[in-house]
């Protein structure tokens, strides 16, 4: 899932300090799983902001709220009227949520309470590690399921480099050398010789390097359009 972590309180405070009615708006999917921005963390930040306001002698109303997800519009619909009553929304959703709400909210600024970092998994409760870079052209079948783009510090396609050090990356002994992991895995799968195959230079346009990406599924859109037409002929959406 998407993993992020809370911004330092001072940074958040600077964004909201001049507003009178602040909503800390949490998301209960990815950022809740990594304990960064679910409803509970939203309430925690709200409590901290109230104390900060009190310390600085500012009169500020701070509330909190949470919905399941900030990346699907139906979750906003039941609460949007309430949300729009605020001067500023501090979203503790991931960056996706901040964008998505900004497009829909109208004249209320939406600011981020989270630094969204990576796609990752829970190695152990409380520890989240980056495992995917969203490159758009997955080659994990060639590397035993271990991603050299996300997990090699140099994003090498033909590692390891000379900096590999007893299975760790030269940047830190806490970081595994991805190519060491790849080689060991391919060995255990009996597929080591696949690494000797030559591949053409990678086309990076499928990644963010090629511009903002969009996926459109026609078979779903057709269904939605049919629903819309049905509604129209039945007298419009309710």
């Amino acid at each position, binding site marked *: 899932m998407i993993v992020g972590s809370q911004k330092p309180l001072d940074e958040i405070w600077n964004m909201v300090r001049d507003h009178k009615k602040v909503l800390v708006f949490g998301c209960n999917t990815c950022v*809740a799983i990594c304990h960064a921005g679910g*409803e509970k963390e939203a309430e*925690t930040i709200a*409590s*901290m902001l109230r104390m900060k306001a*009190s*310390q600085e002698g500012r009169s500020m109303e701070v509330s909190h709220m949470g919905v*399941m997800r900030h990346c699907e519009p139906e979750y906003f619909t039941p609460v949007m009227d309430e949300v729009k009553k605020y001067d500023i929304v501090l979203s503790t959703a991931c960056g996706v949520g901040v964008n998505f709400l900004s497009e829909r909210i109208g004249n209320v600024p939406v600011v981020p309470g989270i630094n969204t970092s990576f796609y990752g998994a829970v190695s152990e409760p409380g520890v989240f590690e980056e495992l995917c870079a969203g490159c758009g052209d997955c080659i994990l079948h060639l590397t035993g399921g271990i991603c050299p783009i996300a997990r090699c510090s140099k994003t090498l396609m033909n590692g390891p480099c000379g900096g590999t050090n007893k299975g760790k990356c030269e940047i830190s002994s806490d970081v595994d050398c991805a190519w060491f992991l790849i080689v060991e895995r391919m060995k255990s799968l009996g597929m080591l010789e696949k690494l000797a195959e030559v591949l053409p230079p990678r086309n990076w346009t499928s990644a963010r390097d090629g511009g903002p990406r969009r996926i459109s599924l026609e078979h779903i859109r057709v269904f939605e359009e049919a629903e819309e037409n049905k509604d129209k002929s039945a007298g419009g959406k309710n």
Partner: protein
Amino acid sequence: MPTEEIKVTPYRPYGADIKETRPYSPCRAACPAHTDAQAYISLIAQGRYNEAFEVITAPNPIATVCSMICHHPCEQACRRCGIDEPLSVRHLKRFAIEQSKDYRRAKRRLAEKTRGKSIGIIGSGPSGLTAARDLADLGYGVTIYERHPQLGGMLVSAIPPYRLPREALKEDVDDVISKGIEVKAGCEVGRDISFDEISRKHDAVLLAAGLSMSRSLNIPGVEGPGILLAIPFLEDVAFGMKIDLGKKVLVIGGGNVAMDVARTARRLGVKDVSMVCLEASDEMPAWKWEVDEAVEEGITINNSWGPKAVARQDGKVTGLEVIKVLSVFDKERRFSPVFDNDQTRTIGADTIIITIGQMANLSFLKDSAVKIDERGRIIWNADTQMTNAPGVFVAGEVVTGPGSAIAAVANGHRAALAMHLYCQGEAVEGKLPVQEKEKIGQMPSDLTDKIMRIPRQKVRHMDPETRCNTFEHFEEGFTEAEALNEASRCRGCGGGAVVDSSKCMACLTCQRVCPYGAPVVQAYSVIRPEYCQACGLCAPECPAEAISMVSYDVREHRNNMAAAIGSPSAGRTEPLIAAFVCTNNIGRHAFQTSSNVKVFPVHCVSRVDILDMLKAFECGADGVAVVSCSGGACKYLDVEKRASARISRAKSLLSVLGIQPERLQKLSSVTADIDSHAAACREFSERVKALGKINSTNKDKE
């Protein structure tokens, strides 16, 4: 003295509504009246005795009586039975009732009569009193007809005072009667007033006359002096009549009434009391503890003998000839005794008391429209509590057969509701509640090692020698320390965590946090009630705030914080401390400390959320203490480490705000002694005082 008439809204403990949608705790399911034992034991543990009284008496108007004599099916169902011993529920009930005596007396009020209809109730035993209370609360005028001079039915006439003190019964009766119920005592229907007249006077009539006649034995020699029947004997004792017992009393019977008869005979000065019954010792119908207590009092029980004839000499009883019983019940557990006619003996006695069963006295219905069957029993519909005669209802042992007081209470509730529907012109069929309730399953075997063993608090009895010479109550109640100790053994079945599936996104946090394996997570988390120990650890950990607790409001302390702390005065010389104090230890609920410490009681510090700690500072506290059980005394697992982690995080959040982290502290004293906790709080308060006031807040500027 009842004063003005008011409408009383019944007290409902927190979580009462959601509990109706989920399986009951086994104690509650086993009670015929479905008393929420888990709820009132939890209230007792928190020192909230008056509220415990409300929970106890809501479904049971003869709760004081039951606290003395109930056979406590709740205890037999208690899930601690698989761990060590069940909770001593009956004695906890007694304790709470004793503590709330002034409260209950002050509560007595006339009930408003709003219906313009009147009800006649024949019989003032458990079912009659229950129906009377329910119907009075519903606004009906109620008249009770009772043939004895005192109310209570069998409770006053057949249960001896060494088991049920008169004062205990009087409290229950007064609670009911003070609602403005008209009482006709010493009024026997059929003799002093006809059933016909009662039917004409009232809009509906309840027959709750019980089983007031003793069965006798049709054996040679039974006619003549020296033979007594159980009920008349017990009634004579109850109403102070003189009784001539000889020196050697033999009681025929093996049930609870037989035990009462034998133990009463002992207390009337007879040293040689013995009993004879068909059943072997392990199949006697009497409760085992009754038998044990009787044997302690020197009563001999002759098991597996059947009465054949009364032996007499010169007209006086000399004994009972008996035949050996080979078996009592057949393969289908039907009563079908088999005798060995070759094995006989004579048990010596000069007085024989026959206690082999009871039947109803229905002679007053002789010329009425109420149909009786060929075996002399009222024909009734158990789904509607109705007889065939319109407006004539039945409740209690007169139709259910012999049973417990609490079962009669449950039946009385049914009859009251049926009569109310009838009087409102509504159909009764299908409207009375289902008796059987789904209950939480047994304690899973993989949990038994995770539950701290605590021995059951023993109940003190008068020693057998002393108690045989008096009708004084032979049991002593719990002291407060004993009651709190016992109440803390409750595992809170059914009072635990519930997940709001619309908020849960299956992050697995609760599954990882729970020490008992209660949550099962698929599309969302479901917390299994048979595993959940209601410790409260999971709710503060849920990142979506999707977990609530059945038995308390997880937001309670946060919501009340501002009001509780008030406005700390700028000129205060003592720091304002908010203390979250675990009440799971003797006297913790009465935790008194200096006036600058606001105490927020919690059943365990597992429920103290970082948000609660922050809220205290937000509302102006100078310091926050989290006071937990010492060392290994916590009755739950993992609380120490979770609480420490939360406090650690809260401290770092406070640092970010420039608030000294030393202002937040976890305290636990070396001993469980309440005074050392108070001392720990005082010390903490001194340390916070030394830190001065918190960096200027708006409040200080006022």
